[in-house]
């Protein structure tokens, strides 16, 4: 059972067809599966259903698939500043389901954990609650939210071992660990693949059982908002 693939195209081979649902990790442009996104663009697969917290920017990240009109439906918490996505949305060319960020994360986790639905207070009294079952627990009202699953999850980690055990770095973790659990096939692109035994088993964020295919990618890691302070300046807190 070799999980290691040469590159994104070989890892995606035989898995894609028009109309499939894809979960894509990342928050803004941080921790996104750049290589798998580019490969999906190259493969030209159409009518994609995308589940992602944000949809990249014009010309980068998932924005590439939006620009190429490969996306039919998006489940997301925030569209970001992507102009072409906005244009397609307003023109009715792309459907969008907005789901609160925490509810999105939990719906994905539930999808991977065999939990078809859970109750949350998030969104009660808002458009998000419309049409959903309401239930009172201990005097407070909650709504029922449903699990999400995908055909393929494309995720980004820092390191993998050959078993597919993954380690993330800093805030690149975000949606990647849960998406890894919630798809029929999970493809992880990483900066380094190491032999089994090189990662301390207490440091593993995503156990290899969730990961079907891995490959070493090359990463531009574009920065969305480059903020910094001067060495001389008084410390300003972000």
């Amino acid at each position, binding site marked *: 059972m070799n999980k290691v693939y040469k590159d994104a195209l070989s890892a995606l081979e035989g898995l894609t067809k028009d109309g499939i649902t894809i979960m894509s990790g990342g928050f803004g442009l941080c921790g996104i599966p750049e290589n798998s996104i580019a490969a999906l663009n190259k493969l030209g697969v159409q009518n994609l259903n995308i589940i992602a917290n944000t949809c990249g920017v014009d010309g980068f990240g998932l924005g590439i698939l939006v620009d190429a009109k490969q996306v039919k439906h998006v489940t997301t918490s925030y569209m970001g500043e992507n102009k072409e996505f906005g244009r397609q949305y307003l023109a009715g060319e792309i459907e969008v389901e907005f789901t609160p960020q925490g509810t999105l994360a939990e719906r994905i986790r539930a999808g991977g954990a065999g939990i078809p639905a859970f109750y*949350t*207070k998030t969104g009660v009294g808002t458009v998000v609650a419309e049409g959903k079952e309401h239930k009172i627990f201990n005097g407070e009202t909650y709504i029922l939210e449903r699990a999400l699953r995908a055909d393929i999850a494309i995720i980004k980690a820092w390191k993998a071992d050959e078993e597919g055990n993954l380690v993330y770095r800093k805030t690149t973790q975000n949606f990647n660990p849960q998406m890894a659990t919630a798809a029929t096939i999970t493809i992880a692109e990483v900066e380094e693949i190491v032999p089994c035994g090189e990662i301390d088993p207490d440091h593993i964020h995503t156990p290899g059982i969730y990961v079907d295919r891995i490959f070493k990618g090359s990463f531009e890691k574009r920065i969305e908002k480059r903020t910094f*302070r001067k060495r001389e300046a008084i410390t300003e807190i972000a």
Partner: protein
Amino acid sequence: MAWTREQIAARAAKELREGFYANLGIGLPTHVANYIPEGMKVILHSENGMLGMGPFPYEDEIDPDLTNAGKQTISELPYSSYFSSAESFNIVRGGHLDLTILGGMEVSQHGDLANWMVPGKMAKGMGGAMDLVAGVKRCVVVMEHINKDGEPKLVKKCSLPLTGMRVIDMVITSHGVFEIDKHGNGPMRLIELAKGVTLEDIRAHTDADYIVALKEEKVAA
């Protein structure tokens, strides 16, 4: 005369306490961090998966793998931790944060908040705002007292789509500070006036029901 945006942020910082875990929204709320009193430890949560958010990095230490929920590059502190979005929102939804400070378009007298979409304009999404107001122990809104069309933002009932219903505990506007009993049906309580703002100014620009309950020692900043 009224509070500037920076003065609003400075006033909001007074809601922080030693050891608080807090989430500051994007925009004006972010500025509150600049007014954390010297020596007070406040642990900032970034909903993309971090506790102990540090200041902007030095230019030669910028790391694309380390950004905040506003997608800005940031730095880490000795006590920082990283985790997944699922864990991050367990922290939010589970009521583990002491305080969140958010921007607002409208706040109703019973604590409803609207801050994520304007009908007719393109909605960009609610991000984590609905989770924060539903989960955090105490929710404070910072905003101008009136909108660009000169209309009150403190209202009897929100006209914009809600972010949360009965979720806001306090509003700090350019004109003053209002407390809300989000579980009751009483009016807001005006507890502080901004420098140079009169009760008449408030009356003229507030749609919400409120009572004047100024705390003598706290008038003006």
